[in-house]
């Protein structure tokens, strides 16, 4: 008995059906996935456009101390130098995003997370930080210490 006769190659029309059904299916999968993937990424939050903020009152900080202040959505660090002048930096460590602090014993800026050190110019001097801290301008206006982002 001979084997039942088989079509050696699929019917040409059949291939078109596969292609059309297949691309339809693929398109619908993409149309399901696309909204889901877009949904996962949240919409961007408008950055605060304020270039200036009152970081502290002059009387609030003694010489050789530091204070974390809110600058938009990020923390800033205001340092009152031993000579009474003010300096301001971004408080976000350039290594892995921790919040730095002023060390009055070292006269330097220190990140507790991975022991990074910056000098009072904001330069990364030791430990893992790859870049200096962003520096801000400081103006004393009456009782207020005003910090301004460099344009």
């Amino acid at each position, binding site marked *: 008995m001979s084997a039942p006769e088989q079509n050696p190659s699929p019917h040409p029309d059949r291939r078109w059906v596969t292609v059309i059904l297949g691309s339809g299916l693929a398109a619908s999968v993409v149309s399901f996935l696309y909204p889901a993937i877009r949904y996962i*990424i949240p919409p961007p939050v408008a950055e605060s456009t304020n270039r200036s903020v009152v970081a502290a009152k002059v009387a609030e900080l003694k010489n050789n101390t530091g204070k974390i202040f809110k600058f938009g959505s990020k923390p800033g660090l205001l340092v009152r130098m031993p000579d009474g002048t003010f300096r301001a930096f971004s408080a976000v460590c350039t*290594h892995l995003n921790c919040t730095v602090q002023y060390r009055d014993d070292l006269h330097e800026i220190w990140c*507790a*997370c991975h022991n990074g050190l910056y000098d009072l110019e904001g330069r990364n001097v030791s430990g*893992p*930080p790859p870049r200096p801290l962003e520096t801000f301008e400081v103006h004393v206006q009456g009782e207020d210490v005003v910090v301004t982002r460099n344009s």
Partner: protein
Amino acid sequence: MSSLFRRTLDWLDERFGAGSIEEFLRHKTVPIHKHSVWYYFGGMTLFLFVVQVLTGILLLLYYRPTPNDAFESVQYLMTQVRFGWLIRSVHSWSANLMILAAFIHMFSVYFLKAYRKPRELTWITGMLLLFIVMGFGFSGYLLPWNTLAFFATKVGTEMAGSIPIVGKWFLVFLRGGDEVTGATLTRFFGFHVAVLPGLATTLLALHLLLVQTLGMSVPPGVERAIAEGRQPRRSMPFVPNFFLRDAIGWYAALGVLGALAAIFPWELGVKADPFAAAPAGIRPEWYFLFVFQTLKYIPAKVFFIDGELLGIFGFSAAALIWVAIPFLDRRVGFAPLTRFFTGLGIFVIGYMIVLSWLALR
């Protein structure tokens, strides 16, 4: 066997197919040899996972996943809810013991070379489960919304963000924005109580199915001794002999958990303040310490590559090689290669212990 049990078994067998349940239970045996003790750690990890699921469900009755409420709800649970301190402390201790048990299980499988053919997939599913368990640890750590957790999450997600090309996307995906905020807490809560449990349960089912299908591995040394007639091949049935031994271990583990929770209740710490400096002495959970300490040592730039990028690449490459071990160590029995992989394992354990110790100093 009591007649009620017999009757129940027969009733089920009529529905599942004659003898299939008994056959399933009888199929699994546990080899007896001088390394048999290591067979207990997989079951121990599984038991602690069950403890995690049960205590986790109980914690869900009071926990509120928002930055204004999370810390307070855990505080309420610890101080006002009867036995709340016990449930949370058991959950935290059991999490840590589970990770310890999983690491012991993984290293014992590694050194006894139980990953060798045909158990490559068992190893891979096991490694994926280990990564998921670490994901549980990382996401769960943030949920009480305390300072330590806040900065640990900042650092951990920032590391993910420094991956080239997809890093930024991945960071925003993890944090639910550019910064660690309430959106991050909501996401981590979702990962911790829905995404990861779903993945873990699926992988666990696969892992156990593979163990059931392939049976327990006998170490190559023991296998050789049996082949050379130096020792007989001995085994015990899994049900009930090994299972009852397992159960004794689990019972003891419950005792240890209760004691640890009562004597060392898990601390809550200080509520996270996004506008406060990272506190001195900050460090992650013990099982991430070796990564943490390595990051401290890598300088800002190595030649022209960013230090943190180098760290992430190093650890990712190491993890990939570790997962692929069954395909690299294919000629177990070929002494030099086998010895190399054993040496590698000892080096890895040594590295993890020494760097963790340096981080704690």
